[in-house]
């Protein structure tokens, strides 16, 4: 029963952390944008504008709620809910740190250590399309429908290359699909990014496309589609869409850190394990993972203000004709090297 309570508490904490990081990502996004464009950014609400996300949230909740009369009301409400649920579900298989020891018992800092961890993430990501499609279609607006179609075809296209690039990672981490095993195989500085730079490049490009971030933010390109699939949404429903996108960004940063940058591993972890108490080491490993995650969130924002948007045909060509063959070749080369040189 204690394991049940522990898991419930863990789920609740991860939920709160996801929401908190998503909220502060909106603040960080504007601060990073301001920094890159030599401005100051939001600084009115609280010291350094730190209360800005709170003010935004209150504003979102208090805005008038408009549901288009010609749209399907239930599907219109279902859209953002689905998008939020799928965004939050992905965090279930991520190992957040070394196991904790409470009252002589060892607890893994992971909601579910599934044998199929990475496939679970790909599966839930593929469900994320529905929130956008349902929302865009039920708005009964041409721009929203165009945005939804763009978003879903883009996400479907890049899922393939993403899955292919993960195969190479599975090959070099003893053939396990469990995220814990993948992280465990990268002890010290033995990070996958040094063995699989091509897979990393493909994966991070696909992650950008899956999160609908610039340079792949065509589903909501303001200059062509007004706001894309959430054009008709107002109030907190719009807030949920925007919020879920930041949660997706947080989770994909976590997945990138786990797959390619050793997760909670860092050089000297084994040494610390012999000197310090277990729980302290566990907390340090959580901290290290979050440092990596924050770096990637920053990286997402950095790219946003550096690279302009792609054209739609360029996007499709990149996904199908460049990334897809490249990832297949990467799998072949990795397999050949493993077979003939036996790493």
């Amino acid at each position, binding site marked *: 029963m204690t394991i049940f309570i522990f898991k419930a508490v863990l789920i609740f904490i991860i939920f709160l952390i996801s929401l908190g990081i998503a909220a502060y990502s909106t603040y960080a996004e504007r601060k990073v944008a301001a920094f890159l464009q030599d401005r100051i950014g939001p600084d009115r609400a609280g010291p350094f504008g730190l209360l800005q996300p709170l003010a935004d949230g209150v504003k979102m909740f208090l805005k008038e709620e408009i549901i288009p009369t010609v749209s399907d009301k239930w599907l219109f409400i279902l859209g953002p809910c689905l998008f939020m649920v799928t965004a939050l579900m992905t965090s279930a298989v991520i190992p957040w740190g070394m196991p904790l020891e409470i009252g002589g018992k060892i607890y893994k800092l992971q909601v579910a250590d599934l044998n199929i961890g990475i496939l679970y993430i*790909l599966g839930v990501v*593929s469900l994320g399309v*529905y929130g956008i499609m349902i929302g865009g*279609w039920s708005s009964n607006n041409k721009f929203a*429908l165009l945005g939804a179609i763009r978003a879903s075809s883009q996400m479907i296209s890049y899922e393939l290359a993403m899955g292919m690039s993960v195969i190479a990672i599975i090959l070099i981490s003893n053939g396990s699909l469990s995220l814990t095993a993948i992280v465990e195989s990268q002890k010290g500085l033995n990070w996958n990014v040094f063995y699989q730079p091509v897979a990393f490049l493909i994966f991070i490009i696909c992650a950008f496309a899956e999160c609908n971030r610039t340079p792949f933010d065509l589903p909501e390109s303001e200059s062509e589609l007004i706001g894309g699939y959430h054009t008709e949404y107002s109030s907190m429903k719009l807030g949920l869409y925007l919020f879920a996108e930041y949660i997706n960004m947080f989770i994909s940063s976590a997945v990138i850190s786990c797959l390619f940058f050793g997760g909670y591993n860092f050089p000297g972890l084994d040494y610390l394990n012999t000197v310090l108490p277990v729980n302290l080491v566990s907390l340090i490993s959580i901290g290290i993972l979050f440092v990596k995650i924050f770096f990637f969130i920053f990286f997402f924002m950095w790219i946003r203000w550096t690279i302009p948007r792609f054209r739609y045909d360029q996007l499709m060509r990149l996904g199908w004709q460049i990334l897809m063959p490249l990832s297949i070749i990467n799998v072949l080369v990795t397999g050949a090297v493993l077979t003939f040189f036996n790493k």
Partner: protein
Amino acid sequence: MNSQIIFFILSSLSLVSALFVVFSKNPIYSVMWLIVCFISIFGHYLMLNAQFLAIIHLIVYAGAIMVLMLFTVMLLNLNKESEPHKSPLPKVAAIISGGLLLLVLLAAMHSGSLPGYISPDLTDTGYVQKVGIKIFTDFLLPFEMTSILFIAAMIGAVVLAKKEKH
């Protein structure tokens, strides 16, 4: 005991959602209920400890095929007015063939002997490693045949899509 309760919840969910698929007037609702149905079947597979099959079911059916269905339904713009008048003949045929299938299934259940019950917690046949080894040793030929079939279908789709260019 716990797994029995979960089984009943999942089963009723899959049955109710399957009924809604059939009885919804709006095709979009049908598609959404079918997704719910697939997700509940995903739960059933997990309960049987068939993790690989479960996740493949989720990715392929709920994630890919239903997206295609949703695309089709959304872009076809189905209105009540544009719906042509249908003859009742297909309905009768569907009832007869469905009834025959039910009969065959019942007969199979009746005459065939079920193997003894093995608790899903005790087997690991559904794990990725086991399924992979089985596919690449005992079932290599059917597996390769299927992949050839898939490649043929993919090439066919590309050829069909490119046809209108010239």
